[in-house]
Every structure is written in structure tokens, then in C-alpha cells.
């Protein structure tokens, strides 16, 4: 078991003032992205965006699901601190794509791309310079023929190759009577340097988000699955044991797992409470959930029992907060990150009606919830300028122009993708870190990064998965507030804790294992 030093967030004196309100300037019409997530029933979910650097220039590029239309890869050609600019890349127009997640599956240092589809999923090998090649067959990856809607990846102990979980939705042949027709999720485990035949994760309950996460910091991730109660029978949220060499098995009520049944659509994970353990925001319809370990103080021996603190912290995000609608909201992708660089994780939630559901808001603004010093959140989507009423699905906060402020891209159903540049004035300092290690699992999936300033310690698990149908792998952004420097360390996936190392604020650093942080200037 990993020896864990639980580092509690050492908050300074509670600040009476509200968080700094961020400002976002929409650059949808000038950024060069012209894309929509299209389609009818089979594309009512999905619509993800993958964010990663496909040409090794240090600027993160985007791959957008197209649903019934083509997918599209856009190269980020923004200049540091300038307006956002993207250029389409030929050759990535795939059909029936619901989502995508980057990962370096073959450990060659070039980012690959897992593409979720209505139909056969694909693993695309990165060739560099934003070129890709379908390697599914070569890697033994069975893409199946399902309606795939969720993804997560990890490297199990001792494995040279990733383990991938694919979440599958309704049996699309049952359109006339879809309820109760959830299809099996699949677990693709390593078999040497390729994938073994997939294992069905039975029972499956129409997953819309999956995440490998070391929820108790035991040193071994479990698979968290968020399921859509609209279509399952006898289902609930799930947590799977994942022990090397043994079949996955569900956590049970006798182990402390409590039955929760929601319209699970997305998972965002971050240590919000400052106890060193990941917390989980689960998107749904009407009220959303923010789960933190029920047993406090948390320890690696904790049972998987979670308390819902969404109400207490002000992140239920259950109803539109602007625009006059009183009907409840529909939430999809969610992401914790610090948009005003005050050192506290904020929360973005993409919102949008499923498709003309009269019981739910049609003008459903995205949320941007700013964390206060006391741990509660303040809604600022409207004043920040990101309260779009379009029908959002996937999204990503990422620093596209490398100015130290997180920008925002949102995929909308049947409407244009929107992109905003973060133009906040007076924001705090920040650092961006990119973990790397040799051998397998080069991006250190499963590591924990800790960033320490006088204000306390921020802890973050490095994962790929979760969200809604899209994720990002690359720079990890940490707001530092007023701190000019920060101490950082990495607890690597094998449990080895690196040394605390100092970095100057407002830099981008490669965190190579056994090396000092290396500042990286834009190419």
C-alpha cells in the first residue's frame, strides 16, 4: 500500500470578499473553428472534445466529435497571449463519432486518440504533426458495434499497455422501446503490448461517464461509472474493484457503497475539500451531486461511502440562474479548474436540453461556479460571459494561448462549437505542469500532483476519462494566487513520491521523473 501523507489544505484566514470575477471574450467567429455536433436520437448524448497537443508545439489542439456529421481535428495556431486561432487538419473526418480521449497507448511519446462511435470504436496511433493512423487491429483492440458514450484508461500495476474501459449506452436497435436495453460496457485489458479480448462489465447500466480513480489513495485505481437511469432497470451508480490479474468486481453495499440512481452524464474529479482525496461532481438532470468521502478525516482505509455536499457548497446547479427559465437544468460535461488563478478549483458545467424535453429548461445556461475561500461556490457564468443558451454537451477548459489563463471550448448539439478566450484582468499567478516518465504510461496516468504555496496544498489526480465524451491530456493548470513561486512534487503511479521542487509562477514546466522541472517556452 502506498504510504500516504495526507496534506490538508491550509487555508489562510477566511476572506470576506467574493472571488475575482473572470471575464471571457467569445471568439467563436474569429477563431477558425466551424463545427457542429449533429444527428438525432443516436446523438442525443455524446458530443465530446479531446484536447491534446498533436504537433508537439506546446499549444493544445482539439478534436471534435461530429455525430451524424464528420468529426474534425483543429490545430491550435494561436500565439502566446493573443487571440485564439485554429486551423482544420485534413484526414480526421470520421463519421458517427460521439467522443474522443487522448492517450499515449503505445508509449512512444506521441499522443494517440481513442475515438468513441456509434458503431466500431477506433484507436488512432499518433504519428506526429497531427497525423494519425488506425491501429485498432494491430493493437488487438476490438471496437465492437455499440453506441459508445464513455471512456477511461489506466495502466494497471506492472502492465506495459493501458487498460481501457468503454461505456456503452442503449441497444440502438431498440429505438421503438429502448428502456431496459443497456448494452455491456467493455474492459480492454493488456495482453503484452496489445489488448486482450474485451471483458464485459456486467451488469452495465447505460454509462455516460467512466473514470479510473484512486478514490481512497490506496495506490490502485477503481473504475467509477456514472449511469443514466433513464434507460436502465435495476441499475445504479457503480464502482468496480480493479485488481491486476483478477476479474473486475463491483463494490457492494456491505463494503459501504451506497445505492445512488441519477441521470448520470458526466464525472468531474478534483480535491475540492482539501483533504488530499479526490471529490466527484456528478452531472445529472435537475440537481447535480458533489461527493466527498463520508468518513472524515479520510484515510486509505475509508469505505467507499460518499456524502453529497452539493447543496451545502452551492453547486447543485439545478436550474437556470439567468434567462428567466424556471424549469430544471440538464447538465453534461463538467470540469474543475481554476479560472481566476486564486488557487481554488472552480467548476464549469455544460448545460443543454436533451432534445425538446418540455419538462426541462430549453434556455439552459452553462455554469461557471467560482470557489470561495470557505469552500462554497458563486455562480458567475453570466457575468463572465459564458452563459450560452445553446444546447451544450462536451467542453474543455484549457489554456489555448498559453497566457496563464484557462480558455473555454464548448461543443453544442446542432449549433456551432463556441470558444472563449479568458481575458480576466487582475487574475493571480499560475503554473502549468506536464508529467512525463519513461517506459510505459509516459503521461503518468494515476499520479498525484501536489502544489504548495503559503495558501496551502492543492492536490490533483492525473486521470484520463470522465467528463462527458471527451477529455484532455497534457498541461495541468494550477492557480497560485499571489504567490510568485510554488513548491511542486509528484507522487508517481508506482507510489514513489518525488522531491518537493520549486518553480516560478507563470511558467510551463515539464515534470520529467527524476529530473528537475524544466521550463518550456512556446515553440
Amino acid at each position, binding site marked *: 500500500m502506498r504510504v500516504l501523507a495526507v496534506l490538508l489544505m491550509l487555508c489562510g484566514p477566511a476572506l470576506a470578499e467574493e472571488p475575482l470575477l473572470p471575464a471571457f471574450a467569445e471568439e467563436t467567429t474569429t477563431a477558425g473553428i466551424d463545427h457542429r455536433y449533429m444527428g438525432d436520437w443516436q446523438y442525443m448524448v455524446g458530443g465530446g472534445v479531446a484536447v491534446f497537443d498533436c504537433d508537439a508545439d506546446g499549444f493544445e489542439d482539439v478534436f471534435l466529435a461530429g455525430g451524424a456529421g464528420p468529426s474534425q481535428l483543429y490545430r491550435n495556431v494561436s500565439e502566446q497571449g493573443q487571440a485564439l486561432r485554429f486551423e482544420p487538419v485534413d484526414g480526421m473526418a470520421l463519421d458517427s463519432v460521439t467522443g474522443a480521449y487522448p492517450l499515449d497507448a503505445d508509449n512512444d511519446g506521441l499522443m494517440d486518440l481513442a475515438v468513441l462511435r456509434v458503431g466500431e470504436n477506433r484507436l488512432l496511433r499518433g504519428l506526429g504533426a497531427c497525423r494519425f493512423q488506425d491501429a485498432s487491429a494491430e493493437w488487438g483492440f476490438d471496437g465492437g458495434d455499440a453506441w459508445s458514450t464513455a471512456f477511461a484508461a489506466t495502466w494497471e500495476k506492472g502492465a506495459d499497455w493501458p487498460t481501457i474501459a468503454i461505456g456503452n449506452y442503449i441497444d440502438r436497435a431498440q429505438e421503438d422501446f429502448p428502456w431496459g436495453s443497456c448494452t455491456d460496457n467493455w474492459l480492454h485489458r493488456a495482453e503484452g503490448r496489445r489488448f486482450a479480448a474485451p471483458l464485459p462489465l456486467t451488469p452495465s447500466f447505460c454509462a455516460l461517464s467512466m473514470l479510473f480513480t484512486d478514490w481512497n489513495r490506496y495506490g490502485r485505481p477503481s473504475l467509477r461509472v456514472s449511469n443514466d437511469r433513464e434507460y436502465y432497470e435495476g441499475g445504479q451508480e457503480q464502482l468496480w474493484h480493479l485488481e491486476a490479474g483478477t476479474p473486475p468486481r463491483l463494490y457492494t453495499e456491505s463494503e459501504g457503497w451506497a445505492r445512488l440512481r441519477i441521470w448520470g452524464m458526466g464525472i468531474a474529479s478534483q480535491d475540492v475539500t482539501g483533504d488530499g482525496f479526490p471529490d466527484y461532481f456528478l452531472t445529472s438532470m435537475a440537481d447535480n451531486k458533489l461527493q466527498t468521502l463520508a468518513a472524515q478525516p479520510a484515510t486509505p482505509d475509508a469505505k467507499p461511502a460518499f456524502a453529497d455536499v452539493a447543496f451545502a457548497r452551492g453547486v447543485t446547479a439545478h436550474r437556470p440562474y439567468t434567462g428567466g427559465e424556471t424549469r430544471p437544468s440538464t447538465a453534461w460535461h463538467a470540469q474543475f479548474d481554476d479560472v481566476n488563478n486564486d488557487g481554488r478549483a472552480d467548476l464549469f458545467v455544460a448545460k443543454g436540453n436533451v432534445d425538446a424535453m*418540455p419538462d426541462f429548461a430549453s434556455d439552459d445556461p452553462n455554469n461557471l461556479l467560482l470557489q470561495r475561500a470557505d469552500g462554497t461556490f458563486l455562480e458567475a457564468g453570466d457575468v463572465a460571459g459564458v452563459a450560452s443558451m445553446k444546447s451544450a454537451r462536451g467542453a474543455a477548459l484549457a489554456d489555448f494561448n498559453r497566457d496563464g489563463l484557462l480558455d473555454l471550448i464548448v461543443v453544442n448539439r446542432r449549433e456551432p462549437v463556441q470558444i472563449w478566450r479568458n481575458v480576466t484582468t487582475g487574475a493571480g499567478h499560475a503554473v502549468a505542469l506536464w508529467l512525463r516518465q519513461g517506459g510505459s504510461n509516459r503521461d503518468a496516468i494515476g499520479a498525484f500532483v501536489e502544489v504548495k504555496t503559503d495558501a496551502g496544498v492543492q492536490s490533483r489526480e492525473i486521470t484520463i476519462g470522465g467528463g462527458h465524451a471527451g477529455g484532455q491530456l497534457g498541461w495541468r493548470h494550477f492557480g497560485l494566487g499571489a504567490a510568485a513561486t510554488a513548491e511542486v512534487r509528484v507522487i508517481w503511479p508506482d507510489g514513489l513520491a518525488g522531491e518537493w521542487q520549486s518553480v516560478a509562477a507563470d511558467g510551463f514546466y515539464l515534470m520529467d521523473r527524476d529530473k528537475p522541472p524544466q521550463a518550456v517556452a512556446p515553440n
Partner: protein
Amino acid sequence: MRGRGGISRRGVLGMAAGLAALPLTRAAASSNSATPEDVIGRWYKLVLQLVRHTATYSPPVASRAFAYLGIAAYEALAPSGGMRTLAGQVNGLTAVPARAAGQDYSDAVLLHAVMTASTQNFFGNTGPSGQGAMAAMAQKLGARAADGVAADVVARSTELGQAIAAHIFAWSQGDGGAVVENMGFPLEYTLTEGAAHWVPTSLVRQQQMPLLPNWGNNRPFAMADGGVCGLEPPLEYSEDPASEFYAQAMEVYTTSKTLTDEQKLIARFWSDDPMLSPTPPGHWISIAMQILARDHADAPRCAEVLALLGIAVADGFIGCWHEKFRHDLLRPVTYIRRVIDKTWNPLLITPPFPEYPSGHSTQSGAAAAVLTHLFGEGFAFDDATHENEGLPVRSFPDFWAAAEEAAVSRLYGGIHFRAANERGLAQGRCIGEQAIALKTRG
């Protein structure tokens, strides 16, 4: 009740299959043709799913839909089934459009038109999957119902069915329950002051207001108003350990600590959570559907049962809600955490509205009264409503046994005091008697 008894049939079902109203002017019908029984069965199967998958459909709202759907089907088949119209019997219903003298009608086509339009009328706010399912049912089942029926009969039957559905829907719009906003939770509500009264019990923001506080003022179907079967006040609130109120709370608490596996199963079997099940009234509709299918009941009989049962459960919720908000009693979880154990949690999720009486108990009592009237005393049956959810089939010697189990399940689940369950059953029996008084035959 589990494991008891085989299946018994009562004489009242003996008339079932033999009285099937055959579609007229049928020629060269294929084996794919849909009978009126197919039509009503398949639509109700879909309706039970729509109740589960339409967010507005909390139990009271669901019960209302069941009443109107049942009455619509009943009125469509009453002429050919030899049944008396409910117009002039249930509150506010005037005579529905009638069959033209000397003209042929297809009961299957007519019924399909009624159900197609009525389901769209009452579930128009369902999501894309429900919309798709309704459209597919309308098209595919419609083709089967019309198979082998002369085109003019199809057209005439469809037109009449749509007219009957429109008539029923127009009638429904004035009952006080036609518009449900924010899933039934008011945006503003003033809590009653005092320790005895309901306070929110949920961490769900939407549920900080009680569900449908004005539902008890809706126009009922068979009873004059929501207060016809009113209840005496609940036990006097007291935190004195010697009081009866404390004793009933302690019973909830101690029961929760000593639940057997069977009691847990009973609690979950009757939990019937909205948006995760067909809801409590849907559970009783499901029971009726299983019995009617098992016994090959003809379509008029199906419609009769579904109409009276729908009326009973709908009036049950109106009457129950009338009393809930008149007495406005707190939930066990509030009292027990305040007085007995601040860490206590019930097995089931506490519903977001006042405690007294138990809604499931009231409507189960009403359902048991009506079904006993229709099928007779000692009518044994099996209930597989939740088989697909992984809960086993339960067997009951009669309808009251099932209703009593539904009532006590709320004690096991920790969401009601005993008095609310027992008096809820009694209220339901009273409300059921109002529905039984409606004349359907003779």
C-alpha cells in the same frame, strides 16, 4: 405474503374472453392483426414506461393520467361492450362523441386512435425516446389494428377515436392538475410554523418545497371533493418519551434497526420511486394488467377495470393530498434526528411532502377496494411488476393483503409512522367506495 397460494380465478372473469367485440367488416385479416386486447395491452405497457420516464410524473400526476386514459378507453368501448357510459357519473364528464347509427366500426382501430391521441395528450412532455416510442407504436400497432379492415371503417373509427380522445382531454383541462411546472415543486412556499409540521428532508435543492401542495384541491372523479374522506388529526405531537407520538417514532426507529431481509425486500418492492418505477398507482395498474392478461380478459373488461382503478387511485391521491396539507405533519426522519438519534437514516428516501397520511397506503386502499369489487374476495394473484429490476415475484391471497403490505412497507422503509399507514388504508377504502358506486354494467 411471499410464496403463498396459487392463482385463483373468480367467476366475474368468466365472461371475459367470450365477449370480445370483433372488428366488423373484416376481410382477409392476417395473423398479424391486432385485437382490441392487443391494442389496450400494448399501449398500457408503453404508458407504464412513459410514467417512469417523464419527469413530471410524480405519483399524483401519474394517477391522474391513469384515470383519464382508462376513462377514454372505457368510453370508446362502452357501446360495443354493453357498458354504461360514465358521462354524468364522474364529475364534469359530458357525453362523448357517439358512433353513428347503422355504421360499422372497428373496436381495435377505434381504441388505437383513442390511445394514440390520449397518450400523446397526456405524455406530450416526455423525452425523445418516449416520443419515438409513441410514434412507433402509433404507426406499427395502427397498421396491425387496421389489417383486414375496410378502409372506410378504418377512417370512420379513427375519426371517432380521435374525437373521443379530444373530448376527454378537453374535460381534463379544467380539473386543476393539467399544468405541472418545475416537476411539481412550487417556486415559493411558506412552511407552517411549529415543531409538528413538515420541513424539507432532502439535500436536493428542488425538493426544499413540498410536492404539489394544491393537488388536494383538484376536481376528483367519483367523489365530490378532496375532503369527502377526510381523516381525524394525526397523533398529537409530543417529544415526551411517555407520549404516543414518541412511541410511534420509536417504533420506526427500532424497526429500522432490526429489519429482516424480508422486510427490506417488502420496503423496496413497494418503494415505487418516481422516475425509477411506474410509481405507486402504476404498480396497481401493473397488477391489474397482469391479471387481465393472465385471464385473457376481453377489451371492454380491460377498459372497465382500468377506468375504475384509475379513478380510484387518482381520487386516492387527491384525497390523500387534501389531508396531507391540512394536517402538515413532519416526517419520521425529522423527528427521530431531533429527538432520538441525530445520525439516523431511513432505508428509503423520504418523499418531499408532509407525512400524514401515507399516499401509498391511501391509494393502495382505494385500489384494493375497487379490485376486490371487480374480481371478488379472496382473489389470489402474483405480482411481477419489478421482476426486470431484479426484485422477485410476490404472491398475495387477495388485494387487501397486497394493500396492507404496501402500507406497512412505509414503516419498514422508515418514511411513515404507523398511524399514517393504517389511517391511509382506511381513507383509501372510503375513497374506493366512491369509485365502486359508479355504474358500469346493467
